[in-house]
C-alpha cells in the first residue's frame, strides 16, 4: 500500500528519488557498487537479516531436533525460556498442540520465503511483460497497460485476495497464485518508465537498425539493463508478499494448518495471546525482522546501484 510513495499512480509524477531524466551510466559498476555496499548501513543490516533467515530456512533440520508437526498433547503451552517456568528443552516454548515453537518458527521461515519468492516471481513475469511492452511500444499499448495498472490498483488487494481464496479454498498454491496475480503493479509501473529511458539510447536504435527482432531487442538488449531495477523491486515485493500472506493467513484464508506459516502462527496464537503472549510476539517479531530485512535490502540495493550522485 505504501508503494504510492515511490510512484504515486501511473499518471502522477515520478518519485523524486528516482533518477529522472539522468543518463544511466556505470563507469566501473562492480567496484563502485561493492564500495557503496560496504558503507551503506541499511543495506548491511538488511543483508544480514535476510541472510540469517535464509540460512535458518536452509539449515532448519540442524537448528532444532523437533519435528514442527509432531504434537504432544500433554506438553501443551509450555512457556518459553525467559518465563520463570520455561526450560531450555523448548527454548521458545510449545504451542496449543504441544509442538515445539522454535521448530515451528524455523520451518516457518521456509514457508514465508517460499511464498514471498514465488509470489514475486509470478508478479515479476506479469509486471515485466506489461511494463516492458508499454515502455517499448508506447502509444496505444502504453495507454492500455496504464489502464490495466489503474484497474489493478483500484481493486482492494486484501479484500479481493481474501474473497477469492475463501471461495476457492485455501492452500499454499492458491495463495501464491492469487497474491502473485495481485502485486505486479510496482514491477509494471517502474519497468514502464525505465524501459522508456533505455529505449531512447543509441544501441537500441542500433539494434533496431541492424534488423533484430522485437523480441530479441526486448529480452537481449533492454532487459539486461533493467536488471538492477528488477532486483530492487523484487526484493521489496518479497517483503510485501510476505506481509500479505501473513494478513491472509491471519484472517484464516491463507495457508492451511498444520503448515507452520508465521501469519498462521499469529492467527493460531491469537486465541491464547492474553495469557501466553509469546505465541504471537515470537512469530510477529520474526515476520517483522524478515520484512524489515527485505525492505532495507531493497532500499539499499536501490541506493548502491543508483547512477552516480544518487547514493
Amino acid at each position, binding site marked *: 500500500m505504501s508503494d504510492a510513495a515511490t510512484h504515486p499512480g501511473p499518471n502522477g509524477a515520478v518519485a523524486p528519488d528516482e533518477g529522472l531524466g539522468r543518463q544511466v551510466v556505470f563507469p566501473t559498476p562492480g567496484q563502485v557498487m561493492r564500495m557503496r555496499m560496504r558503507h551503506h548501513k541499511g543495506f548491511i543490516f538488511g543483508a544480514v537479516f535476510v541472510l540469517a533467515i535464509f540460512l535458518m530456512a536452509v539449515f532448519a533440520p540442524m537448528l532444532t531436533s523437533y519435528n514442527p508437526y509432531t504434537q504432544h*498433547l500433554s506438553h501443551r*503451552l509450555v512457556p518459553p525460556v525467559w518465563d520463570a517456568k520455561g526450560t531450555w528443552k523448548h527454548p521458545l516454548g510449545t504451542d496449543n*498442540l504441544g509442538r515445539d515453537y522454535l521448530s515451528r518458527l524455523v520451518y516457518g521461515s521456509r514457508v514465508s520465503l517460499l511464498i514471498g519468492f514465488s509470489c514475486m516471481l509470478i508478479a515479476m513475469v506479469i509486471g515485466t511483460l506489461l511494463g516492458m511492452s508499454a515502455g517499448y511500444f508506447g502509444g496505444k499499448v502504453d495507454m492500455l497497460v496504464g489502464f490495466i495498472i489503474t484497474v489493478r490498483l483500484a481493486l482492494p488487494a486484501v479484500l479481493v485476495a481474501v474473497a477469492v481464496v475463501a471461495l476457492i479454498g*485455501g492452500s499454499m498454491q492458491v495463495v501464491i497464485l492469487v497474491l502473485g496475480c495481485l502485486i505486479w503493479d510496482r514491477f509494471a509501473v517502474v519497468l514502464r518508465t525505465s524501459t522508456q529511458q533505455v529505449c531512447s539510447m543509441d544501441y537500441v536504435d542500433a539494434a533496431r537498425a541492424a534488423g533484430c527482432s522485437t523480441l530479441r531487442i526486448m529480452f537481449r538488449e533492454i532487459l539486461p539493463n533493467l536488471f538492477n531495477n528488477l532486483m530492487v523491486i523484487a526484493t521489496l515485493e518479497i517483503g510485501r508478499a510476505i506481509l500479505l500472506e501473513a494478513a491472509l493467513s491471519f484472517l484464516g484464508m491463507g495457508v492451511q494448518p498444520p503448515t507452520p506459516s508465521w501469519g498462521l502462527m499469529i492467527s493460531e496464537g491469537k486465541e491464547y495471546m*492474553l495469557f501466553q503472549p509469546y505465541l504471537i510476539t515470537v512469530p510477529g517479531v520474526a515476520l517483522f525482522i524478515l520484512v524489515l530485512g527485505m525492505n532495507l535490502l531493497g532500499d539499499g540495493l536501490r541506493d548502491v546501484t543508483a547512477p552516480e550522485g544518487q547514493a
Partner: protein
Amino acid sequence: MRKGWRKVLMGVVATVITVVFVAAPVQAGKKDDTLNIAFTKELETLDRYFNTAREGIVFARHVFDNLLWRDPKTFEYKPLLAKSYRWVDNLTLEVTLRKGVKFHDGTEMTADDVVYTLNFAANPANKVKTQRYSNWIKKVVKEGPYKVKILLKTPFPAALEFLSGANPIYPKHYYAKVGPKKFGLKPIGTGPYKVAEVEPGKRIVLVKNPDYFKDSPKGQPHIGKIVWRTLPEKNTQVAELMTGGLDWIWMVPPDQAKKLAAMPNIKVIAAETMRIGYLTMDAAGVTLKHGMKNDPFTKLKVRQAVNYAVNREAIAKNLVGGQSKPVYSACFPSQFGCTQDVVKYEYNPAKARKLLAEAGYPDGFTTTLYGYRNRDFAAAIVGDLAAVGIKAKLVMMKYSALREKLRGGKVQFAFLTWGSYSINDVSAITSNFFEFQEDDLARDPVVRDLLLKGDTSIDPKVRKEAYRKALQRIAAQAYWAPLFTYVSNNCFTKDLDFTPYPDAVPRFYQARWK
C-alpha cells in the same frame, strides 16, 4: 511557526486526553442493572423461523414462548403457552391455551395466533428455514378462542420436542401485517424480554417484560436490561470480560477458561453441550462416481484403522477440556435412543497400523481431511493420523463451501460436528445423516430402514430397539469415527447468578445479580 506548531501539538494532546479519559468506555454490570453479553455469530434475522443459528434459538427463548416447555433438569414437557395438551390419537394433538397471556404490544395471545403461526411455518410455500421442525404438521385448526387441534401427517414421536424446542408463537395481527423481513428487525412476542433496540449484526438491546405472565414455568425475569453484542473473536470477548466490558461469554476454550477461573472477579462453569465432533468417511464410494480415482475408505479395515488411530480421550481431555467425553456411538449420549452398547474403538495406533497393512496399505496413504471449525482439534486429528501412516492434508473451509463440496461427491474424509439443534432425540442426528441424504456417505439400506422405523414409530420401545440396531451397525461398519462431545465454558462476572444447562441454551431470564 514554532508557536503555531506548539498550539497544534497542545490541541492534539488535549484531544487525545479528553477522548481517552472523559469518554471512557461504558463499564458493564450490576450497577446499572445491565447484563452485557456477547456472541460470536451475528444473526441474519431475529425471526426464529428464518435463521438456524444457535444464537437464534437463544434469542427466541427470551423474546418468544412456545406452546410447550421442556424442563432442562427433568426433561419433562410442561405446558407453557398451552394450559394443557392431550393426544386425541396418533395424529391429533389437542392443545388448550392459557388465558390472559399478552404480547409485548399489549394484545392478547389467542388460538388465532397459534393457528396462524404454526400453519405459516408448516406451509412449504413460506420457505421457512426451519422446515424440518414444522413439516410434520399437516394442519392446525381452531377449536375455540383458546383451543386448537394440531393434525399430523404421520405419527411423529418428536412432535412434543419440536413444539417445545422450535416453533415459537407469533402475534398474527403484527406478523401478517409486516411480514418476516420487518418482523426480523423488530420482533414482538410473549416472552420474558422485549426487544428495545436492534442494530442488525451488531447489537440487540432487550428489556425486561414487566407484564410477563405470572405462572410461566420459565419464571419471571430479574435483570432489567440485556445488551447483546456480536464479537466474532473469542480473544476479544475474553479481553472484554477481563476488563469489565462484558459480563457473560461462553464457548471459551479450556486454556483461557482455566486462566479466567483464576481471576478474582470471574466465575467459570463448564457445561457439556449436545454437539459432538465426528469424522465422516466415504464408505459407499460416492466420490468414485464423481471422478475420484481411488477411495481407501470403502475398505472396512481402513475405516476401523481411522477409528483406532485418533486419540479421542487425549483430545477430549487436553484440547476440548472440561467435561468433554469421548464418544463411540454416532449420537449424543443423552439423546433418546442413543445406545452406548456399540463396538468401542479405543485408541490403539499399533492395531490401526496392522489393520491398514491388512487392507493393503502397509505404508499408509495420502488423503485430504476437510473441516470447517476448531482448526486446532482438526490439526490434532491430522497429527494422530500421521502417526499411523495416514498422511492427511488439512483443508479448512467455510461451512457452506464444504457442504457444497461434500454434496457434490468431492469429499472422502471430513471432520464435522453436529449440535442436533439441542433436540434430545437420535432422529435429530443419526437419522439426519444416514437416510440416503446427499451427504450420507455410508448409503447403507439396512441402517436407513432401521432408522426410518425408529423415526415413524410411536412406541418408545420399538424406537429404541430400531435405533440400537442402527447405531450398532454404524459402529461395526465404522461409517463414522464419532470423536468427542463439545463443552461450553460459560465465563461470567462473579456478580452474576447464572446456571448453564447441557442443551447449550443460556437462560438469562433466570439469571440475577448477586
